[in-house]
């Protein structure tokens, strides 16, 4: 069902696998899938040269819904999988995806270190401020007073600022998008993929089932008032006072992406015997 006259160019739907998502109708993740496929189409990426990697959670189901290569790993380790893949196969486009629980709770250490390592990966987190898949517990981005069966009355713990942490850890591109705006989200993902080094996109993606209150996000989000900076200190200042609803690219860093200290030898064999001779 190609809409373009050229029958070579792929459109968003060509990046969908056709498998029916298990997501609840109304879930923000549908739009994220839409945006992701759109971004890939717009970048004319070959599906076979892209790998979409994830952990566990509702959002982490996304790889199987794309027509690219994919890996649905274990909870919290998607960035490590992605790093290994990208370092071993630098020519691939590696897109890491998942949820706020997967990425910031159990996966928090990899998040920090992936930002620091600055491997050329795009990390997309569908942040719904809840553990959707396990029936609604608080995640690191959840409001401290949000009531749940596991933490009645709330966790009492102040929320985690993913963008601040990412910046402090050394991520090279930061942006925030809202699933309710799939076009904007697609544009953001597109830029993130193109930006060298580690790019992180926080997508506000409501959970209709456990956070019906997030309906309200539509009224809260607004475009970020200023252009993205490339100065970390300035970006930090802005993010410190950010209320979580500014949408758009927020930081475009200029750090060199991770390079292996690797002699790109293409020799098939090498004789190590000499090292061990007496």
């Amino acid at each position: 069902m190609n809409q373009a006259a050229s029958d070579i160019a792929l459109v968003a739907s060509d990046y969908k696998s056709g498998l029916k998502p298990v997501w609840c109708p109304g879930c923000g993740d549908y739009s994220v899938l839409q945006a992701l496929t759109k971004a890939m189409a717009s970048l004319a990426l070959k599906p076979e040269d892209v790998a979409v990697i994830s952990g566990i959670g509702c959002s982490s189901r996304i790889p199987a819904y794309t027509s690219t290569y994919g890996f649905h790993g274990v909870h919290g380790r998607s960035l490590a999988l992605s790093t290994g893949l990208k370092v071993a196969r630098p020519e691939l486009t590696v897109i890491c995806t998942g949820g706020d629980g997967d990425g910031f709770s159990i996966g928090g250490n990899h998040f920090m270190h992936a930002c620091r390592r600055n491997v050329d990966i795009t990390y997309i987190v569908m942040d719904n401020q809840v553990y959707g898949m396990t029936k609604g517990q608080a995640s690191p981005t959840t409001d401290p007073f949000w009531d749940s069966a596991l933490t009645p009355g709330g966790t009492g713990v102040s929320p985690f600022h993913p963008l601040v942490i990412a910046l402090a850890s050394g991520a090279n591109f930061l942006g925030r998008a809202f699933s309710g705006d799939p076009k904007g989200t697609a544009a953001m993902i597109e830029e993130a993929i193109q930006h060298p080094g580690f790019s992180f996109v926080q997508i506000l993606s409501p959970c209709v089932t456990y956070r019906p209150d997030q309906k309200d996000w539509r009224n809260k989000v607004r475009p970020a008032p200023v252009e993205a900076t490339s100065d970390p200190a300035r970006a930090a200042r802005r993010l410190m006072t950010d209320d979580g609803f500014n949408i758009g690219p927020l930081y475009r860093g200029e750090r060199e992406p991770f390079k292996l200290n690797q002699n790109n030898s293409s020799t098939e064999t090498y004789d190590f015997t000499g090292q061990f001779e007496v």
Partner: protein
Amino acid sequence: MTQELASSRSVSIAVAGSGGAGAMTTGNLLFDVAAKQGWFGTLTRTLGPQIRGGEAAAMVRLTTAPTSSPDDFFHVLLAIDWKNVERFAAEIPLTSDSIIISDVDGGDVPEVISRSGAKIVQLPIAKTAKQIKQGRPNMIALGILAEMVSLPERTLSDMLEKKLGRKGQEAVQSSLDTIKLGRELAADLPVVAKADFEQPAPGERMVISGNEAAGWGAIKGGIRFVAAYPITPATEVLEWMSSALPKLGGSLVQAEDELSSINMAIGGSYGGIPSLTATSGPGLALMTESIGLAVASEVPVVIVNVMRGGPSTGLPTKSEQSDLNIAIYGLHGDAPHIVTAPMAVEDCLFTAQWSVHLAESLQAPAIMLSDQFMGQARAAVEKPEEIDFGTKREVLTEGVEGYERYAVTDSGVSPMAIPGLPGGQYTADGLEHSPTGTPSTQDAHHAEQMDKRLRKLTEFDYADHWAAIEGDGDIAIVTWGSTTGAAREAAERLREFGINAKLIAIRLLSPVQPEKMAAALAGVEKMLVVEQTHSAQFFRYVRAQYDLPCQAKAFNRAGPIIIRPGEIVNEIKNWS
């Protein structure tokens, strides 16, 4: 004064000292020179808890034929000093035939040592060293020992030149002079070993540690990506590979922890690059969840686990075989995978290469269980032969419509599409899935995928590599890993003694090989299972998995005292 060789075929010497006395250096030099001269053997060590300046002993066994066994006791213990020697005295057994050499000014021989009844010789080690400018007691010690094992002047000076040359001629000369004084001090001591063989041709022999051999074998097997998190005693595998990989276009990345390193390795391998990580017990424990992912998603990956004493942080610098259980059974759910174990330092090379071959051929994780004893030992061995195990990972060579990544095949192995191949796109999944990889909770899918994942392992032809089977007889010594050396030597001694003992040393711990084992056990009436664990893990494992047509008994002990051949011999002699 000269005297017969301590044993017709071997001599064991320990050098102890503390606080930077140089015992390890002495041991290493002695060993290297002997190896150059044509001796086979092994050098191991034992350490105090300090990072530096701790008490240490180098333990050298020299043999005329290749062996990986320790001897029952040491013929010579030379102590540069005695500080804190009780910390590892039990690791240096002596008999009344042994000779203890110590410094006249170094105080009394501690009771833990002297109670062996060994002959004590006190020499002016430190004082003599002072005669030379920058002369050091450990070089006196080297001189004494070189004399006692009659190592030629020339080989020794060549070696010193090689090892100390960068420090300048003066340093070398001072050492040589000191060594000479040491040799003189030994004039009245018995010669405990004398090489009556030719110095081997250059390139014929090598000195290598198990950890280096494991790294090398892995690279020979095809590993080109490594994700690393350091841990004792596995770090050297990673460190060796970090320099070696770039020579072949490969790479190593340091990860933030073991959860990351195993997943990085899985990620690399999913990308088609044979990948590895190395760790020890605590790290392996952190990896098991993700090793299970490799099982379910059918991604080959090699984990070299160099065992140390457990449980928990345990005894990081001591050897034990107690990670057998976790390696085999430590994954949640039913998660069939490969577990291998080298039998000696040099076998780390073969087994690592083979483990890569198995992981790649079977699209499954392979855990190779080495241990601190062989990992950190240096062995003088014959140069290994080149081996090629042939074909590797079965990949999809061309995209197909409706590609089934997890197709249910006869062999159980399904061609794997490597990212980059058009038309091969699929999503690897740790959730149970249908043949295409789509998550499924259906009984039929679960059953067929479980069967397939098991079948590919059990139906594979492991050839003769699964075990080393030597000798014949109605008694079998069944073992694995680094106790193989002692078991083999025990079997040899028993044979000399008129008891026909068969050695069955298992290299492929999992999957089990029931038919091959049955054949190996044909005619065996008693089997002694030898292992270095507290709970007889291997004995229990063998009983669980194999139908044993004979009486079976465990001879097991936790680390750090290794099992010696004489103990096995006694155990069998006393088993009526």
